[in-house]
């Protein structure tokens, strides 16, 4: 009846399929040599390994099924094409044996997948034993706070962890739902706001248990849509050996030499050890060093201190209201709304993993956070921000003040 029906030529299929196949193969090969900083198939923890092992197993099951279905289909499509003058095929209505077969075989495969899956589910959610390092992770729009309750250390966006020691991350949101995802550490977990519960009941929070096996800097980001700047809510995990990690903790606990005004100019905050008195300071050797860009930092005493840094401190503590939101350990700044800025100068990135931590980027960020990262919740030099129902007026900073502020922040390495 329809003359053109059945006119599909398989020859037509081949160039398309070949071309497409070649394209994917080329793209895959050319990309294999590259570093995928957020690769899910290159885990570095026990948790990530457990998931990856399961993934590989299921991957081969699915490839097997796909191969069977596609091969069968290709055979049918070629073998049973209408031939000229062919009689109407015999009407076959079904076959009980076949139906049972293709119900049972997939059912067995399902069982083969479900058993290791359930085993892994329980394995990865079991809390570790021994000397566990607990980290309280708080997701906020659009940055991360990391607090080590046993160490009294709080930092932001850049999480330092020791290699080889079990770590338990306790996840909690300060506003909307986020998801903590550092693919090389393992699968993501949602970071939920904590629901108020009646007195005496433990509020529910998620945990993630990992033991890192390799040193390195691992990239991650928020994986649950949380608003305008969701795509730029990054995480860096710096995995160090135990000794380096302890050094980092120690450094954090010691106020940076430039954090406070030199002792004779202004009385230090109570309980703040004098910076120069601490022999363990790792960057003492950097005194007076001048970096590219001309901003000097890390001056120890009043006579050598870079005037720009001193000026920046003035801006931070007196001319603007930075301290309302930000904290710097060992100073009077103790805000908890925004990221903790202790030893900010030593961080790899700013803006939650968005930009390398350079003076230039820092100046751009302070001047106009939203211009750099749309949706950022920090008030800019010239505009108002409403955050959690509170209105924050513009910082009202001029270029000179911003440059000084940047110099002060990056001086605390």
């Amino acid at each position, binding site marked *: 009846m329809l003359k053109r029906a059945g006119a599909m030529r398989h020859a037509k299929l081949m160039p398309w399929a070949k071309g497409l196949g070649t394209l994917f193969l080329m793209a895959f090969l050319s990309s294999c040599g590259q570093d995928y*900083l957020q690769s899910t198939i290159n885990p570095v923890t026990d948790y990530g390994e457990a998931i990856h092992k399961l993934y590989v197993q299921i991957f081969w099951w699915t490839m097997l099924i796909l191969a069977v279905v596609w091969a069968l289909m290709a055979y049918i499509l070629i073998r049973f094409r209408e031939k000229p003058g062919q009689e109407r095929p015999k009407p*076959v209505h079904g076959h009980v044996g076949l*139906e049972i077969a293709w119900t049972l075989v997939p059912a067995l495969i399902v069982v083969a997948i479900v058993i290791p899956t359930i085993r892994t*589910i329980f394995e990865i959610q079991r809390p570790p034993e021994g000397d566990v390092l607990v980290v309280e992770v708080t997701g906020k729009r659009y940055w991360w706070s990391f607090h080590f309750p046993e160490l009294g250390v709080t930092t932001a966006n850049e999480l330092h962890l020791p290699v080889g020691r079990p770590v338990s991350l306790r996840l909690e949101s300060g506003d909307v739902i986020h998801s903590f995802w550092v693919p090389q550490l393992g699968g993501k977990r949602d970071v939920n706001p904590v629901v108020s519960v009646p007195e005496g009941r433990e509020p529910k929070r998620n945990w993630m248990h990992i033991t890192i096996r390799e040193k390195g800097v691992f990239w991650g980001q928020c994986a649950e849509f949380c608003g305008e700047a969701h795509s730029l809510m990054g995480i860096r995990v710096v995995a160090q050996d135990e000794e380096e990690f302890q050094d980092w903790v120690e450094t954090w606990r010691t106020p940076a030499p430039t954090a406070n005004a030199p002792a004779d100019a202004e009385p230090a905050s109570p309980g703040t050890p004098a910076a120069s008195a601490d022999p363990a300071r790792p960057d003492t050797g950097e005194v007076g060093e001048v970096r590219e860009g001309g901003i000097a930092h890390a001056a120890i005493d009043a006579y050598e201190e870079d005037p720009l840094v001193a000026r920046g401190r003035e801006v931070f503590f007196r001319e603007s209201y930075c301290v309302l939101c930000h904290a710097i350990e060992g100073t009077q700044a103790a805000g908890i709304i925004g990221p903790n800025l202790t030893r900010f100068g030593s961080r790899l990135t700013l803006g939650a993993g968005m930009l390398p931590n350079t003076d230039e980027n820092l100046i751009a960020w302070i001047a106009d956070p939203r211009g750099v990262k749309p949706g950022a919740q920090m008030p800019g030099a010239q505009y108002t921000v409403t955050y959690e129902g509170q209105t924050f007026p513009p910082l009202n900073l001029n270029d000179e003040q911003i440059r000084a502020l940047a110099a002060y922040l990056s001086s605390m390495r």
Partner: protein
Amino acid sequence: MSAAAITAHAPSHPHGEATGIWSWITTVDHKRIGIMYFLTSFFFFFVGGLEALLIRIQLMRPENAFISAETYSQMFTMHGTTMVFLVAMPMAVAFFNYLVPLQIGARDVAFPRLNALSFWVFLFGGLYLNSSFLFGAAPNTSWVGYANLTSLQFTPGRNVEFWIIGLSILGASSILGGVNFITTIINLRAPGMKLMRMPLFTWMTLVTSFLLITALPVIAVALILLGFDRFFGANFFEVTAGGDPILWQHLFWLFGHPEVYILILPAFGIISDVIPTFSKKPLFGYPVVVYAGILIGFIGWGVWSHHMFTVGLGPIADSFFVASTMIIAIPTGIKIFNWLATMWGGSLRFPTPMLFAVGLVAVFTVGGLSGVMHASAPVDLQQHDSYFVVAHFHYVLVGGAMMGLFSGIYFWFPKVTGRMMNETIGKWHFWTTLVGFNLTFFPMHFAGLFGMPRRTWTYLEALNLETWNQLSTVGAFIFGASSLLLMWNLFHSVRKGEKASPNPWGAGTLEWALPSPPRHYNFAALPRVRSREPLWDEEERKEVEAVTMAEPDREPLMPSPSFWPVVLAFGLALTWILLMTHIWWMPLLGLAVTAVAVFGWAFQPAFR
């Protein structure tokens, strides 16, 4: 108004019905309503497609700012919402409308006016939802709208309100449609059309309709709770007051997973009619395919938390939902094997409808299998909310639902218009779709495996995701162009297509016993059906066609047109929309229109 209605209704000449715009607005004919459903959803298909292209341009380069982050949020939210609620669902409903009465031997659906109401409510809901663009306040919290991001505190502005109200209106339309089709299929079958003789498409319509009337109320409840939070300061999802945002996720996915089957089962139904036709063999294992469909519908209710493996529901809940989700792969596999067995030993022809049907089987299998991967909870912890999942559900919904609908368009176009679609353009359409589709979505598997989360406005250059994204963007444009081919083909063929005979494909089911296009009363007298493929048995065919093709002396009495469905739909939509004013008495105006329309409807006789 009523004068005009009467004029329009004025007894038409024997073999036609009234023409003109007014006759379409007041129509209660399931075929016309089906055509309007199709045209509307086809229009929204291009709206949603345009949104997709903007997304793809933005992601073509790392750290790009082609559109702003806020615009991007609106684009992916509206792309998802549009494609699900304004394209895939209503396009399936277009097929339900046009075909179900023809396939079961009925003159119309059980409630013709209710059917018109469904359409108009859908149209107003769709237009209203999209009108948000005019205010720069399109919904921007993703198509799943997770609480507590949707609260007034975190998303001030009207965006979320447009979404709540738009979806509520659309949901009402779907529930009405579901009720109508269940009643029609159960009560209006021609003599001898036993349930187990119904064409597979009608069967899947029945299963889908049950899902519609059970799943849509769940999201209605969720939307009402959210609406109370936003409009009246309730605390259902407010954590500081003891509300729990996770409740939203349970409610949404309790609707959302059955919704997935609402989208895919009609496509399964379509190709279960197409494949036997072009294999010249009856469907292999008919009862098994039917039961598999019903089983999918049932189990579909017990798997919702597999969308929530990252939420932290605990290992026992995770294990349960892993098992139930894996089980659903079995009936799905059964369907695929039965389609293959239908083709086995057949005499296969490959015009465009069959190409799309076969394409669905090949491509859907990929999506089904990647689904098996993240049905495993631990694996899902890596894949969830990454581009791997984006690849998966596009393989299922575009490679599955849309391919099935395309197959149905080419298959039934001759029945609807009396003309054939152009085969050359059709083949081009198929191959460009296949290439464009795979080029768009296959690389997304890799983007996801290499750490690209979904719903991200941009990605850092250092992540090395550019190549995969560029491939997707190129593919998206090819796919977009292929859709233009379909539009051109429809436009061209409806006027210039080769004339179609009543049964151009040599199919076996009842709708092909009618003239193309069918007369407005479908069946002057009802045929007696004795088998699943009445047209494939020479004797039965003659018997049936003697009834279906006969010119009646007098046309059967059909329900009269009515303008009340439009008015009622308008009243209902208005009630909801006026909530946006935040003035308590404003919605009462809409209710007043609704009340008038209800009375007008009730007192207007169905037959005049």
